[in-house]
């Protein structure tokens, strides 16, 4: 009986064993498609803003003569093709799709070319993951160093090499490639799981590194994106959401948004202004203040059209034209009524893919000063243009701050508020007090009022010339009393006190931007060092 009964079970055993792998295979997940989805999410939605800004800091047209500045560099052809592909990042989902496809196909081919067995298949994802890690590690440098062609250029070349290699292998060995969409037949659940763990953990680690070590990269890029789209409310919201993060590009974008919405005298100190160091290198591989990220725009929105044009030109010299510089140069040329110049830059920009909308909008303004002056953004900038000429070298840099510290004449109330705001930002109270007279009898913006309260100490009676200050006195006294214990070590307590006093100017005056306080300011300097 036992023999009889045991025989069928022996016979059935292979069936059970065959069914088991089938069940196991059903529980396996298609790793390559998952990897594709993961990289697409990373490249389009997580890091898409960074690549989007990289495109703005790049330039590509089909005309080879115009691209000679790239083609004549080492590996110019690769850079050229890389820049071409980067253009798809006008729409991050599209650029991300291409990048994800390249990384996924590259991983698949890596596995095939290296003849990886199923147990080692996780290794095929290493080059793609390494690429993602290197891009993340570089942070802002991926566009700041003007080598934007390499973002796509390197994976493209790698993919080409792999394709060639695979073709050779296929020609000689006829070795079948593992499934691309489905699940490779030779994989066990353990091997499948290992691959999943590798790609998920590595992607998470890359994102974690970015969040912990380069948290400002995506924020700055999103701010720049919003700045180019004139989304002033979005900038304020994002900057305030990251108020503890502090860097100059973010501060400049935030200040521009406040100026454009008339809130510079109310909300400037809602974000921390101590400026942590950034992982950033110039073309000379020296640390700098990232000034090229914000000076052209800062000058433009500060009413300094000519210096903005100058800054654009200097950067174009160093990096070649970029979409961002061309656009700003077009706006500057329009404001200066340099119609032929505006038309020239528009002609160049029209050759860049996906820039039709910008060219249509601003192309309509050429030779129509009424359209220029009625543009909301430009009209506001007009109000803050200087009245008198002087030379940039007479002021501290950046000019949009240095100029406002020195000159006392402006063409509008907005110019006065900007100047007062710069004086308060730089803590130059004598200059601040000098400029207050036109506001006498009025209720100034809250930050200006707080500045007046602080100036009262050395200028007794000054607050009597303004209304609305009385109720602020107790607040100031309360602040001074509460922070008295921290005054001996202000740098040591600045960070911890910020959340409590966010937005309150006296906090900034005593605890904020202490490097600037220590350094001090002069009214005239030919130095190139930036105003902190």
């Amino acid at each position: 009986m036992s023999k009889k009964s045991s025989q069928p079970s022996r016979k059935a055993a292979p069936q059970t064993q065959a069914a088991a792998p089938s069940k196991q295979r059903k529980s396996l997940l298609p790793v390559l498609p998952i990897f594709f989805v993961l990289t697409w999410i990373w490249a389009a939605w997580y890091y898409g803003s960074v690549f989007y800004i990289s495109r703005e800091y790049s330039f590509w047209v089909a005309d080879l003569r115009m691209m000679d500045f790239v083609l004549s560099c080492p590996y110019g052809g690769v850079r050229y093709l890389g820049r071409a592909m980067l253009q798809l990042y006008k729409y991050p989902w599209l650029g991300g799709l291409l990048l994800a496809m390249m990384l996924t196909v590259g991983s698949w081919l890596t596995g095939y070319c290296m003849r990886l067995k199923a147990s080692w298949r996780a290794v095929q994802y290493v080059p793609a993951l390494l690429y993602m890690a290197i891009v993340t590690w570089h942070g802002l440098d991926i566009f700041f160093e003007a080598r934007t062609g390499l973002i796509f250029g390197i994976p493209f070349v790698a993919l080409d090499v792999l394709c060639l290699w695979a073709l050779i292998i296929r020609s000689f060995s006829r070795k079948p490639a593992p499934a691309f969409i489905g699940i490779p037949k030779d994989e066990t659940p353990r091997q499948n799981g290992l691959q999943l763990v590798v790609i998920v953990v590595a992607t998470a680690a890359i994102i974690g590194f970015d969040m912990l070590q380069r948290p400002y990269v995506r924020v700055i890029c999103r701010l720049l994106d919003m700045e180019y789209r004139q989304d002033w409310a979005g900038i304020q919201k994002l900057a305030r959401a990251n108020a503890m993060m502090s860097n100059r590009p973010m501060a400049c974008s935030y200040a521009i948004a406040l100026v454009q919405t008339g809130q510079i005298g109310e909300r400037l100190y809602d974000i921390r202004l101590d400026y942590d160091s950034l992982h950033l290198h110039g073309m000379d591989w020296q640390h700098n203040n990232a000034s090229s990220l914000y000076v052209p725009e800062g000058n433009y929105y500060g009413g300094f059209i000519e210096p903005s044009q100058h800054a654009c030109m200097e950067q174009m010299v160093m990096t070649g034209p970029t979409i961002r510089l061309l656009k700003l140069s077009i706006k500057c040329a329009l404001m200066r009524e340099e119609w032929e110049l505006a038309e020239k830059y528009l002609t160049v920009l029209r050759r860049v893919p996906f820039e039709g909308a910008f060219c249509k909008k601003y192309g309509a303004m050429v030779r129509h000063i009424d359209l220029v002056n009625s543009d909301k953004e430009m009209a506001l900038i007009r109000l803050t243009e200087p009245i008198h000429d002087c030379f940039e070298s007479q002021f501290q840099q950046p000019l949009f701050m240095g100029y406002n510290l020195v000159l006392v004449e402006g063409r509008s109330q907005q110019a006065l508020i900007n100047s007062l705001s710069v004086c308060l930002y730089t803590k130059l109270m004598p200059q601040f007090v000098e400029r207050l007279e036109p506001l006498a009898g009025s209720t100034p913006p809250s930050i200006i009022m707080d500045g007046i309260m602080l100036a009262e100490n050395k200028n007794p009676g000054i607050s009597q010339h303004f209304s609305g200050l009385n109720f602020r006195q107790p607040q100031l006294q309360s602040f001074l009393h509460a922070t008295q214990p921290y005054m001996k070590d202000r740098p040591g307590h600045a960070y911890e006190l910020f959340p409590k006093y966010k937005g309150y100017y006296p906090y900034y005056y005593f605890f904020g931007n202490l490097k600037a306080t220590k350094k001090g300011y002069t009214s005239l300097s030919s130095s190139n060092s930036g105003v902190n």
Partner: protein
Amino acid sequence: MRRHILYIVYCILFITIVGCQPKAELPSQFAESNTEAEIYPDYKDVVVPPNIAPLNFICRDSVATAYVAQLKGKSQQLLAAAAEDGVIRMDSTEWRNLLTTSKGGEISVDIYGKRPDGWVHFKPYKFSVAEEPIDAFISYRLIEPGYELYRQLGIYQRNLTTFDEKPIYENNREYNDGENHCINCHNYRMGSTESMLFHVRANHGGTIIVQDGKAHKVQLKDSTIITSGVYPSWHPTENLVAFSTNKTGQAFHVYYPEKLEVMDEKSDLLLYDVTKNEVSHIFRTADDMETFPCWSPDGRTLYYCTAKRNYLLDMSLPDSLVTQQLLMKFDSVRYNLMSIPFDPKTRSFGQPQMEVDAVSEGQSISVPRVSPDGRYILYTLGDYGQFHIWHKSSDLWVKDLQTGECYPLTEANSPDVDSFHSWSSNSRWFAFSSRRMDENYTRLFIAYFDKDGKAHKPFVIPQEDPEWNILLLKSYNVPELSRDAVSISMQDLHHCIYETEGENAVYKPNPTAIVNLDGTTGASPKKPVDGTSGASPKKP
């Protein structure tokens, strides 16, 4: 089989290329228009040399979808067509025949545009073909119109009879702190590239001198020399070069029609003996700023510009503030045109003479260039300063050295910058740079200068793609015409620049040099030595 496939591919390519070419055929029916066609660049009513490359142009009409241009000379005609982009490209052989047979005559241009309601014939325009050719080559530096930073730049040579452009020298293409260098002030002896020089600044710095097809580097430095050699002029017969040596600064306007101001804080003139590698001063003066030397064709006179500066300065303030002081008075610094006799045999200089007293007229002169026939001196006149390439007031003027008369070249000038210029060796043409096209990027223009000393309407140098003058994001800088092409290779220049340190020139004082270091009296006389030479520019 493979050959057949190749044939098919070639045929498809040929058909595609030929099929895409617009057909140059005059329309049989058309309406007459009472306006001229808008064309870019403006080649209407210009005078062109008989050896110039085809003047390709763009027709601009808001509704036309095709164009045909008919160029008619004395006995030849040329047809060219354009698609919707309006780009008229002419066949170079037909163009050459047309110009050759039209020497001394006119060519009329009839343009037809295909509008939705049929072809229209625009009013024709004309241009003239001179008898005299222009020097075949022009060299220039291509650089962005920004002067604080530099990156990729080079000196290039264009064959004006074709569209060929080749680099004479290009600096490092990719940023490299140890390699970055600027190149400037290329110059030839009397329109011949047999003797050539240019400067290298920053890394690998020095003056590169090319003679007999060989390049060598020299360092024109001495404790008595302000910086090193700057603006050069080859002596026409001796192996000498006159240089200015300038301490130059620049500042950028904040709110002004002109973008920047380039100023000298001080400058002197030097004489460099290429054969002996010796350098000496021609002028070493504290109060006067001498610059832009230029030899006369006989080599017996050196022309230059000079300005006084001390009267603009508060001498009680420290030297470190000189730049700031001058900057505050940037529009008060003005230069006269002077000359000084030179004896090539003894290498001695005489006394300076006033050539054009521009200062008394509230004007300022720069870049004097004597015509190769010695009759005229062409210079730039502006309201102030010496770097007229950034002054909208700058215009081209000539002084007739026979009559002493000074007058503007009205036909050649524009409301914008018209500055740096170079003569063709037959004195009938000059090339110059102008910002007239977009106020920012300099482009090269060529003007005919007739036997009566009158300039004619200039034209921008032709490009194979006429839109290139718009698309190019660099300025043409320091145009220098030459009869022949530069023969030294870029590799040889690269080797000279990168691999050699440069020989130090020996400083040897010239006993006839004008030295005045206390700055109390100027070396240049305030009044002309004789009545004819001290001409004043007449306002047009």
